[in-house]
């Protein structure tokens, strides 16, 4: 991506807002070990369910652990899961989409029917079913979310390849004797990057939500490791009393997902000439 494209993207106020949100959350998560006031796993049975105060800014949970520290460390997990899961799904999506769009014929039919089959299964239930058979752990969650959310990218890449393959510069390159790999990697893929990036950014948002949902159901990150989803579960039981256990992780999930969505939409507007022209 060229510098002017980034400039253009960030001149969109929504995208800029999204970028700032994501950047802030990333910084907080990265610095968690430094800025956390307490050890996130430090139990204090004499300080159970204390409300927010100067000592514990976000209160304490059912085992007297500091919620702010757990939120910061939990943020690392949520963001890590989001990025890795999307990395996996994007890689698979690009590979299959490129194969389908470039070689067409039976390869295309086969891959697209696979996409149809995968799309016909409600993905959250598929993930629930798969996790029920595996040990829930961060790594498994990342892999499973990645393996069940590549279909959108595949369709996008295939569509881009199909249309790019008819363009003059590709045809010219082919006529000059360029091999498949060269065509794919120097011409088709770089020119398909825009929609891929947009869909990846939006994908992170849904992966963060998915991880929170799984952890909320007890199938995600396991105790004592914190994640926003399982702080929220702890809070569910005491929502009328210990509101801080529900409010803060809920807000964190909301703001993060909002941030990624704003950034994704803003990037799309800025990078896609078809929708960007009217701005």
């Amino acid at each position, binding site marked *: 991506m060229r510098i002017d494209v980034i400039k253009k993207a960030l001149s969109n106020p929504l995208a800029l807002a999204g970028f700032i949100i994501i950047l802030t959350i990333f910084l907080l998560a990265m610095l968690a070990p430094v800025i956390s006031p307490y050890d996130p796993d430090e*139990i204090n049975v004499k300080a159970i369910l204390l409300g927010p105060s100067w000592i514990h800014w976000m209160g304490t949970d059912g085992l007297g652990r500091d919620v702010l520290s757990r939120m910061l460390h939990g943020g690392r997990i949520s963001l890590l899961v989001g990025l890795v899961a999307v990395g996996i799904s994007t890689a698979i999506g690009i590979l299959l989409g490129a194969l389908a769009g470039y070689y067409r014929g039976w390869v295309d039919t086969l891959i697209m029917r696979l996409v149809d089959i995968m799309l016909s299964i409600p993905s959250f239930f598929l993930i629930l079913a798969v996790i029920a058979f595996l040990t829930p752990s961060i790594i498994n969650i990342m892999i499973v979310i990645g393996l069940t959310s590549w279909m959108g990218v595949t369709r996008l890449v295939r569509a881009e390849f199909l249309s790019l393959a008819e363009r003059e510069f590709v045809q010219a390159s082919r006529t000059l004797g360029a091999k498949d790999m060269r065509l794919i990697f120097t011409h088709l893929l770089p020119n398909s990057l825009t929609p891929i990036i947009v869909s990846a950014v939006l994908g992170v948002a849904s992966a963060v939500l998915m991880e929170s949902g799984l952890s909320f159901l007890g199938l995600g990150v*396991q105790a004592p490791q914190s994640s926003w989803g399982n702080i929220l579960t702890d809070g569910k*039981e005491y*929502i*009328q*009393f210990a*509101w801080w256990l529900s409010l803060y992780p809920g807000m964190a999930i909301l703001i993060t997902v909002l941030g990624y969505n704003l950034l994704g939409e803003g990037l799309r507007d800025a990078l896609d000439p078809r929708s960007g022209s009217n701005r």
Partner: protein
Amino acid sequence: MLSLCLSACNQPPPTKATKDYAARYPSVAGGTMIGAMTAEPSGLIYMVAGESASAAIASNIFNALLKYNATLDLEGDLAESWTISDDQKTITFKLKPNLTWADGHPLTSADVLFTWKLVIDEKTRSPYASDYQLVKKAETPDAFTFKVSYDQAYAPALDSWSGLQILPAHLLKGQDIHTTAFARKPVGSNYYQLDVWKNGENIQLSRNTKSVLGPAQIDKLITRIIPDNSAQFLELMADNIDTMGLDPIKYSRIIPSRPELQKNLNLYKELGNSYTYMGFNLKHKPFDDIRVRKAINYAIDKQEIIDGVYLGLGINIASPYKPGTRWSNAALSPYPYDAQKAKALLKEAGFIDTNSDGILERDGKPFAFEIITNQNKEREKSAVLIQRRLKDIGIDVKIRAIEWASFISRFIKTGDFDVVVLGWGLGLDPDQYSIWHSSQQAPGQFNFIGYNNPTIDKLLEQGRTELDPDKRMNIYHEFAKVLLEDCPIVYLSAGYGLTAMHKRIQGIVDPIPPAGVGYDSHKWYIPEPLRRNEISAQ
């Protein structure tokens, strides 16, 4: 902010605040009491359903031959009296005269015989069959007499007859017990009968006018099915249910902080007949080594679990019986928290931190295992506290909380686990053959930790055949002592049962008798001025 909104939404209408719940009212018949349960029963034939939700409803509808009184001694339920033969092998029950089912059909010894045949029938596949399979011969000399003989004296026999709900032969004969419509439309003999069962919503019972024990006071019992505990609590706060079980945080933190709840609710606390424990899979290394088991026991601070998880509403125990009862061996004391002793024992067992990573190793392998538990907040929290304490002495513990059905089928029945945190709910008879005897290790049976100790086996066998109460007590005291020494499980806590009950429900026995807060509930009543409007009761 959020809490304010929620409580404001649930404020009862102001008219209700004028009711004086402190006043004493005379007992009067009528009214509706509304309760709640988290799981819907699969059916109301308890011997087949075998779940607590089924028992909670069915016990209002059916009677057994015997029941426990306020001080937990056996008395007649359907039986008027019973005699035990001199050789202790035969029990003869005499039924009360003029017993009838709710449909007017007479209830006779033929019904009892029919029920016994049903529970031992292999096709019934009842989880409770084993007690009744020991009956060698059952006969009905006349319509009021039921006689059972055992091969040898069987001490838990009488207790077992307090657990078998007698079913009507005239309605069930020739039916498949697993598919019969009777399970959802039962006809019983106890204080209440089933009125309406709205799937997934509620189960409504109304007073059985032909009850063999005389009439109950409250007209209708409605049990609402509310799967989520916090939703139940919201309904309690909104005065839409009268009673529910509480967890320690609701009992000692939330309700006391809300005067409007305190004004309407009575809280009850009683020591339950159950305990929470951490059990080792004794077939897995290194838990076959008693030094390792003891080390872990010393390393766990049980008081910390009672304070932190149960907010002090629990008791540290040393035998698998309710503290204070005759079966509990008062001479035993729990393993104290002693990290140094734990470390020394592990060293003796060959665990040394060779690579200075803070985790002990033996034969090059780090000491690490996984604790599994079902998705129960108290148990999960206990596991987190255990995890931390064991890390202090160099054991790396992972925790996994699993949904109940797959927890049982995938891990407990297959024996595919290292360590569990679970609880045992116990009956009133001290016999724990099915939990500890080495013969009870088949998939689905209760000795899933694989405990095999010939001394314990012998004591359990003796306890089953000894009828003298004092000798029997000594056997179980010895049993608890050997068990504590051998340490197949770590007792974590015996928790209190906590109940909230709306003050409109009156006549509850106070102080709570040993039989529990629910004892004699047929005498409870709701004074007319305190009743809900009938519309809001629906």
